[in-house]
Structures are given as C-alpha cells and as structure tokens.
C-alpha cells in the first residue's frame, strides 16, 4: 500500500501530476491532503501549490547575509526565512526589504525583473511634473535601498498630493 507523500500517514488515493516548465512532478496523496492541496475538485482552476513552487526556486540560493539574525521586514515583521519556507511574503514592503535576493527569485521564476503591463490609475503620470519627478526619485531611492532618503521623498509627495487635492 502506498502512503500519502504529503502526510506520510494515510493510504494514497489520488495521483497528481504537474508539469512546470517541462519538469514533470508526480505525487500520491490521501483524500484529506488532496483536499487541502485543492486537488479534490477535479477541474479545479485554483490549485496553486505555489508555496512548494517558490521554495524550489529558492533552493540553491544560500544565505549570503553576514548577520546571524534572520532578516525581518520592518513593516509586517515577516522574515526571509518565513518567505523561504512558505513561498509567501507578508506585505508589499517585503519586496523592498528582501530587495536584491527577491530580484534573483523573480528572475528565476519569471525570467524577468521588469513589469511592462498595466499600471493602476494612481500610479499613472499625473501631469504635475514636480510630483512625477519626486515619484521617480522615490523609486530610485528604494531601488538603491536608501530608505532614509525615500522616507523624506515620501513625505514631500504626500504633502504635494494633499495640496493638489485641496485645490
């Protein structure tokens, strides 16, 4: 009798096969695990398995930091270890905090590190040249991990936006 690859306790009843970028992975799951993994509904479009997927991309990316304490996002408290374990980040600021390594992860997953698609309304150029310039400068500061400068710029932008709203 084959045991479930996930829990290792119950007999496997479902055989799952995924092909990602040409790499075929097969595993056998018990009913309970298949349900939890979202495979139980036969045509289910939501199965992500994303956690494992990201972990696979993180493998072979050794911890290169010199600090012994796990790196933490100052906003949500999420650590890089938690990200490596779950495949999830806690908030948008994690992307900045885990900057350089996140870039490597994105390159491995997507083969790219630059967005070329849609832009939400509030991020589109405002037509206010001073505001747009400040926003560009802010992005630059974040990319270079100059967070103090970024904080100052963010305040200036907020101030300007407030003014333009009150007009």
């Amino acid at each position, binding site marked *: 009798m084959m045991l479930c690859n996930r829990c290792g306790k119950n007999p496997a009843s479902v055989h799952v096969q995924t092909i990602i970028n040409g790499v075929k992975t097969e595993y056998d799951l018990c009913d309970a695990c298949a349900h939890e993994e979202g495979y139980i509904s*036969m045509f289910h479009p939501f199965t992500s398995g994303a956690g494992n997927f990201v972990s696979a991309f993180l493998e072979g990316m050794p911890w290169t930091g010199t600090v012994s304490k796990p790196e933490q996002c100052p906003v949500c408290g999420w650590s890089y270890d938690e990200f490596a374990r779950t495949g999830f980040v806690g908030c948008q600021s994690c992307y900045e905090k885990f900057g350089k390594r996140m870039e490597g992860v994105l390159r491995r997953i997507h083969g790219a590190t630059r967005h070329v698609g*849609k832009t939400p309304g509030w991020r589109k150029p405002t037509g206010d040249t001073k505001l747009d310039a400040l926003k560009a400068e802010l992005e630059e500061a974040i990319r270079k991990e100059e967070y103090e400068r970024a904080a100052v710029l963010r305040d200036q932008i907020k101030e300007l936006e407030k003014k333009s709203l009150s007009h």
Partner: protein
Amino acid sequence: MDLDTVLNRPWSGWSKDDGPDTDVVLSSRIRLARNLEGVPFPVAMKGEHLTAVMAAAERVVESLNSGAGLGRYSLIAIKDLRQLDRAVLVEKHLMSPQHASNEKYGALILREDECVSIMVNEEDHFRIQTLSSGLQLPETLRLANVVDDAMDRVVRYAFSPQIGYLTCCPTNVGTGLRGSVMVHVPALALTGQAGSVLSAVGKLGLVVRGLYGEGSEAAGNVFQISNQVSLGQTEGDIVANLSGIARRIIDQERDARARLINGIRMQLEDRVFRAFGVMKNARIMSSAEALRLWSDIRLGICAGLIMGIPLAKLDELLVMSRPGYIQRTAGREMEPSERDITRANMIRKLLEV
C-alpha cells in the same frame, strides 16, 4: 442577487452561451491578483486590517453596481454561508477550496451570472476572476480589465513601477495575471498522444495540470493549461501566447478525432454508445464513473455520433455530479453510497430527451 438561484442551478451564465471551440475547450478563465496599498497581505493580516479590506470591498461592490452594463454584484461573507453552499461555490469554480474554510477574513463578490467572481482575502486581498465558455481569452481578459478598472477608481492598489502589481506570492507579481484554459482531449488520450503533447506544452513556460485516477488517464481527460510567467510580458502577450498554444492543442485533438472516426469508427461508436447506455440506465453511479462516461459521451456528441444533446447540457453534469451539489439539492448530508444512487437518478433525468 438571490444566491439560491446561483446555487440551485448546475449551469452558469457563462456556460449557457456556446463559445468558440467548445468541442475541445470547456472554459477560458482570467485571474487578476490585486492588493491594497499599505495593508499587509492576508497571510500577515490582523483584525484591524480586516476593516480596511472590507470597507474597500464595499466600495468595490458599489462601484461595480453603479457602472453601466457591468451586471449586479453581491458581497457575501464566507462565515455566513452554510457548508454545502460553500461546497457548491467551489464546485462551480467561483471560489477556491482553501477560501471555503476562510471564515475569519474571507468574503466573495459575485456577479449574478457567475461570469465574474472576486475572492476577498484569499491569498491576496482581491482575486478577480472572469470565466467564459470555449476559447476566448482576449474577451475574458477584457471583462477582467473592465472590472479591474472599476475597482481601481475606488481603491489604491499596491504597485511598484519596477515589478508591477505586488502580490503575496512572487509567482504572481507583475501583471498578477493567470490565464487558464480547460481542455478536453479524449482522442489524444485514446491514441496515446496526450502525454507527449502536454509535456511539450509544459516546455513552453506553461503549466499543465490534470487529476489522475488510478490508471494512467487523467480523470475525464480534462487538463488545465495556464501561464506560469506573470512578469516581464504584457497582459496581451501572455494571453496571446496561451491562446496560440491552446489553438495547437485544439488542432491536434481534432486531427486525432478524425483519425479515430476514419480508422476505427465501429470501435469508437461502440465505446461511445456503451457509455451512453450506462449513463442513461445506471442506478448507482460514482463521480469517477460519471466523469469517465461523460468524456466518452462528449466525444460522441462532438463526433456527430450522438444527436440531440447540446454540449452545454451534457456539461451540466460536471457540477451536477459533484458531492456538494447533490447534497445541497437534497437538502441534507449523505453517505457516499446514497449519493451514488441520487447521482444516477439526477443524471438519468438530465439525459431524458
């Protein structure tokens, strides 16, 4: 919107209208992952953040309902739904199985015709999903964009000009777009080509998923093909690439069907009509058997062997034979053996012409 109407019927607004290429493609689906600026993702969320997300969800529903031609939307909290109601929503692909147990934070925004559903606080704050029949990804994307734009007017999305829409999992960053097509390839499976065709697809940066039964054939010979990459390409390019590959699979499946008809017509007819006979007469039917027979009968209808049953009607079986739908329709929970009897009854009634 009356949620009971949605849950009572085995069909959906989108499945009723016959899209293009429905002989091979069951559905096209677009998902856009979106998050609110300045609010931790659901995985790291605390009670106080829930208020912000739910307030945004209410603004979203208001914005969608006031937009002309966008349809009628309702906001439903997961905790307010009975277990069997949740099960049917999952079986109808309107929310994920994980979301069904998300009582603490989860909600669903649903358009009455089921073409649009938005999961609130699943992996991301918002997961916009649009569905349509057959292969029509660009149209399905257009609808998702219309919904997204209406939302964009009332909420501020987390976004970085460098890496795009920010999502809880880096696999969705950038466009936040996942396009999927559900293909039914019984002839490729019968001729032993499904494996090679689908693993070739897997080499093209796409993901192929199928659920396997005990044998080597995927249950119902249905596979889902979706893009993996969401960053570095435009939404239009992602969808065009996926459509192009779906188109190739359609061609290959149709070729294989033609070869079966021309080569072993009698064996094919025998297989199809045996399935039809069992489906119309069985008194006990497991969901696995229903799916296997559905696949043969669907092939028979597409090959012109079985007349008088529209594909959309046969495909109602995909929801109708699921445990949640059966039990909800009966109004109570049932043992699997009892479900198998009810399933057989429901299917016989569906196929009465």
